């Protein structure tokens, strides 16, 4: 059983997708301008991501998790998810920012060491999406913490999330 399987895996092609096209230079330049040189040197070509769900419907979480499957294999780019904001370079925030999550998000941001990128992922995180105007939401991540990059979509497909995160990586390179 084992030997034929090993042979098959040795000669088969990898399941992982090709990397997306390079980020347009103007986006990289804009993101780079947000970081000072010292920060660029410190972060290098590896970014640790702490995901914070600030009230999403869990659709965005499904696609973020799909980034880690063998087809997208996020870690090959030097991007990885970490369990604590204290270990993170990126806060990847989803949801329309509910009033019940605002304090937790602010605290997570305070616990993340500088330099730190904040990415608002999904239409809800961008401006509240369909939930804008509800008594229970603040209408986007920006209402509580400054945002560096917006990745719209409902939910954005893994390729689009990857493009956004790679743009941050390029800005650090």
């Amino acid at each position, binding site marked *: 059983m084992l030997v034929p399987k090993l042979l098959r895996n040795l000669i088969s092609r990898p*399941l992982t997708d090709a990397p997306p096209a390079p980020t347009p230079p103007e986006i990289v330049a804009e993101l780079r301008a947000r970081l000072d040189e010292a920060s660029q040197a410190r972060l290098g070509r590896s970014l640790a991501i702490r*995901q*914070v*769900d*600030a*009230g*999403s*419907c*869990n*659709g*965005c*979480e*499904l*696609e*973020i*998790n*799909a980034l*880690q*499957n*063998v*087809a*997208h294999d996020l870690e090959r780019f030097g991007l990885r*998810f970490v*369990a*604590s*904001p204290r270990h993170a370079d990126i806060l990847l925030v989803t*949801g*329309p920012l*509910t*009033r*019940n*999550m*605002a*304090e*937790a998000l602010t605290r*997570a941001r305070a616990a993340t060491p500088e330099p730190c990128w904040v990415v608002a992922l999904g239409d809800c995180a961008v401006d509240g999406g*369909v*939930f804008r*105007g*509800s*008594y*229970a*939401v603040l209408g986007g991540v920006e209402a509580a913490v400054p945002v560096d990059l917006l990745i719209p979509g*409902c*939910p954005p*497909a893994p390729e689009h999330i990857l493009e956004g995160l790679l743009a941050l990586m390029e800005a650090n390179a």
Partner: protein
Amino acid sequence: MTARSVIEAGQRAGCTPWARYLLDARRWAALAPSPGFSLLALWGEAGVAHAAFLDETRMEVLLASVAAEEGRIPALSPFWPGAALFERVLRDLWGIEAVGGTDQRPFLDHGRWPLLAPLSARPPAHSPNPPPMEFLPATGDGVHIIPVGPIHAGVIEPGHFRFHIQGEIIVRLEVRLGYTHKGTLSLMQGKPPRAAARFAARLSGDSTVAHSLAFARAAEAAFGVEAPPRALALRVAMLELERLHNHLNDLGFIANDAAFAAIHARCGWLREGLLRAQAEAFGHRLMMDRVLPGGVAQDVSAGGIEAILTALTAMAAELPEVLQIYDRHASLQDRVAGTGMMDARLVAAFAPGGVVGRAAGRGFDARLLTGDLAPRALITQQGADVDARWRQRHAEALQSIEFLQALLPALPPALPDGELTVALPARGGEGIALVEGFRGECLAWMRLDGAGGIEACMLRDPSWLHWPLLEAAVIGNIVADFPLINKSINGSYSGVDL
């Protein structure tokens, strides 16, 4: 008197396809559990409380309502333990107090909204001032507390878990949700069902098709219309596809929580293949906003059926091997077998739906109500542990593949005019529907005003009955097995938070 006879003695209020009866407070208080009768949901509208029950012998839903005189109703929770969580939310959202209820603490309301009881007739303004959360105590030698969340270690939804532990052993767990409360029901009020459908599609993203379909069927029942045959078949296909991609996800993630990466990797790959086929067929990986009241948003694309069938073939070929790998690894079996057992008495008292119920021997699936599943095709397990829940998902995934392989090549043709939706009239009505999503039965209820706008509605995720059972299933297990047990139940946070 049985619960059915108590309800039917009330005044018939009219709801399709299942009737609703208005009871006085005395009759409502006499609603005691009887065999084969279970509580599905309890919710409110301004000044009234509604409850939905399932009559498992007749395979029918029965609705009961009671007027909240001065904002109070008799509690159901002393007899129906599953009602406790609903009663907490009844007060949080509708300002209706369940007198004599077993738990008077808030659940969704954290004291951070600018108003109280947002769905009551006149919500009073409130200056946000979150009080400290109260948790039930646990006492004993060396008992200590582990507070977890709202932000968890993984990429999952937010909630607060309060563990009381003794050594490695969990003595008590309490789940406090509400962190993702978005005011969904209040946003739906006043909108016509077509416009409100996007909120049903975003109640719980992983069940977007199931909740959209329950909402659509409830609206169609209220209006007395039926979607075209091809749209009906496409919706059933999407429902099975959603079950399949979520079951694959859970099969992988449960194994992953026991640090068994191979199953996670294979299931993740198969699921990705299916999501890509769904994107090709329906234009969206999760098929969000594709099911609408009155029909479907669009037809399946030209190459879409072929793409899905190809993905299904790959799955059908590999899933038996995944089961073999699962069976043959003692290290994995050691983690899942006997872990997170659910007590049979609790299963009987709460009557949880979906995989959680069927893996504990409960023979209910909402597809039995619509004839989409034949009674002899119903799959159940007896184990009531993590292992049984994994096996239940595996068996259901294989069943969904077979079902789709038969359905997709034989979809009914479009009507001559090519329409995939029927027009919705601008008139009043009341409807309810129960749709079996991957977690269990999703309930949607709505009452429409004379112009066809939503006057009151409820979307009830199956997780309402799963969260309390998670709290019970972890007792006596080690803390390190919590993620495994939690994933095997996989409650939706957003689905309950509303």
